[in-house]
């Protein structure tokens, strides 16, 4: 098992429909491949942490790195882990029309993203916090202030 964190830039801004399709596609593929984690999207900034079996995670990253929909893929971390920290796969972004999204499986509003799981080391949790900051900016609401580990 390993987890990978990367940052990237979308080639063109993603519309609500693009995001919805991406969410559906990733939910389906990730559930099949046993990939869990979280993806942040805002104004063309993308960051994702995902965890899974070594081969599956590496294959997924190779596929992501070659995906023409984004560029400047910057891998921040690629480390073996002993256990998962995320039970599921989620995506957090600001839809233009939030009405229909709240009900979608796996969707989170950025201000509802929970603090990084406590099973992550503090260094890794900080990394997740920093990529969240990099994607949503300091103006975005801080996460629900859970007690620090």
């Amino acid at each position: 098992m390993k987890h990978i964190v990367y940052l990237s830039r979308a080639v063109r801004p993603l519309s609500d429909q693009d995001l919805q399709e991406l969410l559906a596609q990733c939910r389906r593929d990730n559930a099949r491949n046993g990939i869990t984690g979280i993806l942040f999207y805002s104004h063309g900034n993308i960051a994702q942490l995902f965890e899974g079996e070594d081969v599956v995670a590496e294959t997924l990253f190779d596929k992501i790195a070659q995906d023409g929909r984004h560029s400047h893929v910057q891998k921040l971390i690629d480390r073996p882990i002993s256990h998962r920290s995320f039970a599921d796969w989620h995506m957090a972004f600001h839809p233009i029309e939030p009405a229909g999204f709240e009900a979608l499986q796996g969707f989170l509003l950025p201000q509802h993203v929970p603090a990084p799981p406590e099973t992550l080391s503090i260094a890794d949790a900080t990394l997740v916090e920093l990529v969240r900051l990099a994607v949503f900016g300091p103006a975005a609401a801080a996460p629900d202030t859970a007690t620090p580990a």
Partner: protein
Amino acid sequence: MQEQHLQDILRRLPAGVATLEGPELRYSFVNEAFARLLNAGELLGRTVAEVPGPWPADLLGVMQQVYRTGLGHVAKACPLCDDPTARDEGVYYDVTLEPICAADGTVSGLLLFVVDVTVQEQARQRTHELAIETRRLDARLRVLSETAPQITFTIDAAGRCEYVSPQWYFFTGQPRTSDLNAIWPLLIHPDDRLRVLYQSEAARNSGTGWSYEYRLRRHDGQYRWMLSRALPELHTAATPPLHWHGALTEIHDQRELAEALRRGEAELRFLADSIPELIWTASAEGFVEYYNQYTGDYSGLTTAELGPTGWINLLHPDEQAGAARQWVHSVATGEEYEGVFRMRRHDGRYRWHIIRARQLTDGQGPRWFGACTDVDDQHRLRQVLQTQYDELAQANRDLDTFVYTASHDLKQPVLNLRGLFDELRRTATFHDPEKTQMLVMVDEALTQLDLTLQELAATVRDQRGLSAPVEELDVRHVAEEVLLGLRVQVQQSGAEIELDTDEAPLLTYGRANLRSVLHNLISNALKFAHPDRTPHVQIRSFRTADGHPGLQVQDNGLGMVLPDEPAAVFQPFTRQHPHIGGSGVGLYLVQRIVSSRGGRLEVESTVGEGTTFTIYWEEGTAADHV
């Protein structure tokens, strides 16, 4: 037969042929091409003037002139068309007019020979236009190549220079008459010459372009870096190119700058790697991209193992969360980062470090530069000193309090003693002859004791400033002074302090008293913080329903068990949490101060949840004897 044959040939000739007879110029022979050309029905026997032809108006006059003079004439490229719209299509004929002479040599008629030269004429015109266009393009190219800051050149397959723009002469300072092919290689820096000649020849031999840099001598003798780029002129893929066209660009300054940058960067990197401190740089997003060599030596980890936030792993587990929180805050706000943390060395030992990071904002976007300075020795020494200082200060305060309390507590017994003694003198009889003297002595001793006790209490009071006169105080201001004194404790605990004095911003009280009260209550709140949560201390200045000022200090700390007898909390030397340092006189002192001025102190507490102290001030009264 032969005559007939000749007629046939004439009739079918693709050029128009006609003969005109007599001075009135009557058609005597017309072939098919000619008839088609005029398209005017039967022509034979009619005069030229009768048949409207496509001739230009002046041609009729020319015909008559040829008839008169007997000299032939050729009208070249005549636009033969009477229809002005059709003329635009550009049909052109050469019209040859030859006199026909009779046997006696006099002119008897004219031979008209009309050949369609439209194609030739069009070609001629196109050639003319092309020549104009070529001249224009040539002029443009020349102006462009002579105004561009680059030197442009053309070189043939043998490496001979066919053309070089005037800039070459300006740059090198060579006369226009100089032999380019001989002088050019000599102007190349000796260290670059062979390489340039070889690279140029290799490119020409393989039929490709080139791009290389070399130093060329300028008119002032200085060698300047130039970029030479050229491409072959290719017409077909099969034939090797015969010419190369290219440009020389001066790149000296850019190259010097790039070189300086490279050198500067290498030097900085070397410097950073030589310093026995942990140095790192991070992106604007807060991801560390570079750790210096010493970081690797100290931690025993490589940059890859450390990763973008790996420095947090080096910190003592107790300090990681606070340090990480502070770092995220700095990245979000751009505020400087500073903290004192224990960092793990490769051998597992923790040493105290000051970690500082600042954001540099320049043209390349913001970046963070951080340094971790080993202050372990200083820190340990300071800790020892601080502990000793704290102990001494505490002992001093305790002694003061003890003296204070003792002097107060002894006052009553002395008073009792004096009462008893007076009673004894009144009722008992003494037979000693020196009784009067002794009674006076006892009296004096009692008075002396009372005075001494009063002076003791007053000395302590004056020393601690507790008897200072009251003044109007800004509660927020005093509280901030106290917090400044406690900043180390606030920082270490990561406590959130909430200060709200809006309801009762001013208080008339002794400055030292208020400070002492605040200091004791806040430092208690920080000291007895719950280990599992961020300490949260609320300080609130309020007014009661009847307008009296009050102060509340509330924390979310350990809490305490309140004894049945509330006063017990405030007995001296009572310690609620024996595992945490302290002498147990703080609250006692607070209570004495508050009650000495007529106020009262209340406490509510739940174990594991927190404690709230509420003070109801009595303003303006001077401290009486505590």
